[in-house]
């Protein structure tokens, strides 16, 4: 059995896309600058040279057009994988995503599946200008008919992109752009978990931390600091935001009695709110403290020179851990 290879998330997703393109000729990549340039984050680097301009398509600069034509291609039996260049540029395609892509299967009583993946580099930490650092996943997790996932590691990037492409449902694939470059092991032999399972990434007994995407690295950092101070923290990587795999979360809360849900996205009406509500409903008697949320603020994403105050870091997470332990 081959040893896992160390590679960054961007390269791992690239490898996953390559595998999907090779495995099924109906798989197409579509997006702005994804061909010769390889995408602004180079996630599709080399794929057009390998698979040609009919499989890896530089589209006109129009998000609704990209998604809307992907819907038509899916009706024709294709499995389009669309790249949205940056999180904040997905909104021109919002109608085609929420009113068409998400609903066509239901509208047609299942006769017309929509195996479309929409890749979205998302989140902050990169010092960029406005519209380039947002976390819009809640809009899509709120929309019936869409599946929403976010890998946090290169291994998940490699496998989850292939699982998303294999799904017969539309999948919003949120790629934490600040995690594109750090390397991690990728095991090319087998997928560790299904597309929609959450995963226990660190065991602990005192407090449970839940997050997704780039936040997972922050949570692990916080857990290490807490351990040094004698607090045992359990960390769960959500991986999937629709559906949410609650079983590991509930099992953890039954053990620790305390839950802090963390996300970069604004906290109001967010994925974190939903998890907090569900855990309160289902694990009420296990809770020793109210479920707490650590989120971005309910403001527009700020100028990058102050983004460090906006984005939850390990200290903000630990402050909430302390509060939870204070009950």
């Amino acid at each position, binding site marked *: 059995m081959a040893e896992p290879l160390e590679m960054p998330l961007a390269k791992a997703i690239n490898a996953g896309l390559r595998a999907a393109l090779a495995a099924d000729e109906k798989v197409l990549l579509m997006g702005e600058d994804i061909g010769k340039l390889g995408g602004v984050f180079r996630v599709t680097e080399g794929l057009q040279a390998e698979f040609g301009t009919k499989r890896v398509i530089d589209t006109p600069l129009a998000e609704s057009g990209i998604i809307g034509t992907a819907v*038509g*291609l899916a009706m024709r039996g294709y499995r389009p994988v669309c790249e949205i260049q940056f999180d904040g540029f997905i909104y021109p395609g919002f109608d085609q995503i929420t009113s068409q892509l998400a609903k066509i299967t239901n509208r047609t009583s299942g006769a017309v599946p929509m195996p479309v993946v929409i890749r979205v580099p998302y989140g902050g930490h990169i010092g960029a200008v406005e519209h380039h650092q947002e976390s819009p996943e809640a809009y899509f997790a709120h929309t019936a008919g869409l599946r929403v996932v976010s890998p946090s590691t290169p291994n998940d990037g490699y496998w989850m992109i292939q699982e998303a492409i294999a799904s017969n449902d539309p999948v919003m694939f949120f790629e934490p752009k600040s995690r594109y470059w750090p390397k991690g092991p990728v095991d090319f032999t087998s997928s560790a978990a299904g597309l929609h399972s959450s995963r226990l990434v660190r065991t602990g007994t005192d407090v449970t931390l839940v997050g997704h995407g780039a936040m997972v690295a922050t949570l692990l950092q916080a857990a290490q600091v807490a351990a040094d101070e004698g607090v045992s923290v359990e960390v769960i990587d959500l991986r999937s935001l629709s559906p949410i795999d609650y079983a590991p979360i509930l099992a953890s809360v039954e053990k620790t009695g305390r839950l802090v849900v963390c996300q970069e996205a604004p906290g109001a009406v967010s994925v974190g709110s939903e998890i907090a509500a569900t855990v309160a409903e289902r694990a009420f008697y296990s809770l020793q403290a109210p479920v707490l949320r650590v989120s971005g603020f309910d403001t527009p994403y700020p100028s990058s020179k102050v983004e460090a105050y906006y984005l939850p870091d390990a200290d903000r997470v630990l402050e909430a851990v302390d509060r939870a332990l204070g009950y």
Partner: protein
Amino acid sequence: MKSEVAGVVEVSPTVRFLSVDGTFAPTEAAEEYRSQLDGLSHDDFLQFYRDMAITRRFDEECTNLQRQGQMGLWPPSHGQEAAQVGSARAARPQDVLFPSYREHAVALVRGVDIVDIVKVMRGVSLGGWDATDPSNGNFRNYTLVIGSQTLHATGYAMGLGFDGLVGTGDPTVDAAVMTYFGDGSTSQGDVSEAFVFAASNQTSQVFFLQNNQWAISVPVEVQSRIPLYLRSRGFGVPSVQIDGNDVLASYAATRKHLDEARAGQGPALIEAVTYRIGAHTTSDDPTRYQTPEQLAYWVERDPIIRYAAYLRSLGADDAFFAEVTDEAESFAADLRHRTLELEAPPLASIFDSVYSEPHPLVAEQKAWLEAYELSMKEAI
């Protein structure tokens, strides 16, 4: 030509074969389309009439059914039958048609059971018919978000190209897409983006624009200060304007441009200038925005009356027209009968097709509703 009647916009050069009184008098612009009519048999000419007359009759029946509380809504196609029938009859079986929500005549021609449209308007189904079932003639589902279907059509046409089904020269293989949309929808970004993607990909595709002069109450001048057929040219999609109330113009123009599209010559747009003689939908009151003169002007240009006069000049007799009237009557009676029999779908239909693959949240809510409904019944 600019019309004398206020609020009536008609622009030359228009492709027209039949003048308002039904005489065969092709305009200059029609000449290059004239040979498209050569292959039509006498029966084909009669069939155009049958399609239009049956549509007019069931459309009226559906309006009545709505008035009687049997449907939530009905968007009438009254007045647009020629544009729809001519274009639909020009398409080949392998072509794929993406409608808006008023293309009842196209549905009829392509073999969709009209009761499936009624299902949508009665609230017993969201989609109505299975567009993947070959018996429905590749007539895709109605789309209510204005303009969005034009992008689906363009994507589908891109797929036809990728599949090698364009420009092979084999008339049974080469395929095209046609999408229907209205004058109001030309203001939507999706329609502009569809032109962009179609031109960029040189898709095998006809954009069939029915300019019925209104977007609900808003006249076409609010959407565009230039004739709408010129709109697509700036995007690189060639176009032609036709008299949409002349079924022969609609047939000939569509046939030519679909043929060219299938042959790999890229997309085209046809603007069919027509008129929505009925209300926007049964919820609408056109007397608030339409003058009686406007309506009268267009009633005079009724596509069915015009075509009937032409058929008489070809020798169609009273017996033929009586036979079609009978056929239309029984069609409408059957539709009424089957409409009244339509029942609400099972509760499971709320949940069953939200996803193609199992989704725990939806499964959980379905189980909850079933248990809840059962508990309510037991409580009684």
